[in-house]
């Protein structure tokens, strides 16, 4: 069972109280963008065995979206943070690099 801390409520909740929202930090390519950019935005998703950044919604709680970094292989959660950011916080990146020295970074 995956448990994540909602950064708004500060409460650690289990997966059944949350709704998953797929990969985090996608950059939108809308009207006017190239076909390749739009296709990548629309369909191409990372599928790593390891560190992954995800969107989650505290659906049965405050209802807010937040972001989480976790390992898809071990389910280890590195941290959660509010959704109002375009990239992961530096301290979280540092923490992940310490735990996963061979990790290539989130890009």
């Amino acid at each position, binding site marked *: 069972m995956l448990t994540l801390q909602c950064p*708004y*409520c*500060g*409460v650690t*909740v*289990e997966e*059944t*109280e949350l709704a998953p929202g797929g990969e985090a930090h996608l950059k939108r390519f809308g009207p006017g963008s190239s076909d390749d950019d739009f296709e990548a935005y629309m369909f191409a998703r990372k599928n790593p065995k390891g560190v992954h950044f995800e969107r989650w919604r505290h*659906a*049965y*709680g*405050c*209802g*807010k979206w937040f972001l989480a970094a976790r390992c898809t292989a071990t389910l280890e959660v590195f941290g959660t943070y509010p959704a109002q950011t375009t990239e992961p916080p530096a301290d979280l990146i540092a923490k992940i690099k310490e735990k996963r020295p061979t990790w290539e970074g989130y890009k």
Partner: protein
Amino acid sequence: MSDAVSALNGQTHDGFARVAEAGLRGMVTIRADLDSTALAAALGALGLSVPAKRQIVSAGDTSVGWMGPDELLLLCDYAQAPHLCADLSAALAGEHALVVTVSDARAIFTVQGARADQVLQKLCPVDFATLPVGELRRTRAAQIAAALWRSGPDELSLVCFRSVAGYMIGLLEVSARKGGEIF
């Protein structure tokens, strides 16, 4: 004036704990910047304050709970709700805020008894052993959203949408049946 009735007309069941639909209760949803001084002043005039994260504060028959980083739920006398709603709307005029009476869109339940926690331990992914008095916890009860808190000695209150009140009383009644005690 229409004759207001609550979702289940006070339906009550006695098992190892007493579960009841708690009848008509005034409820007002406030969506606003919780740091607003006007909001603090308006709640202060009711003897309340802006609750801290996950807290519920009370003054007499009126309570206000933290529902999210931009949302509060005011609980009050049923007949008073439209008046409090109008007062709060006026107090927050000019701010990016929304105040709505939701009394008839919600249902409220109580679970009473020394084993009240056990009724909800079977339904909600919440650690009731560490749920303190004064905390409002939004969670789910089986398949529906609910907000719950300790509303008295050996008593928990729950709020859910009125449309699922029948499902809620069904859950509570089955969970509270004698022989279903956990410990």
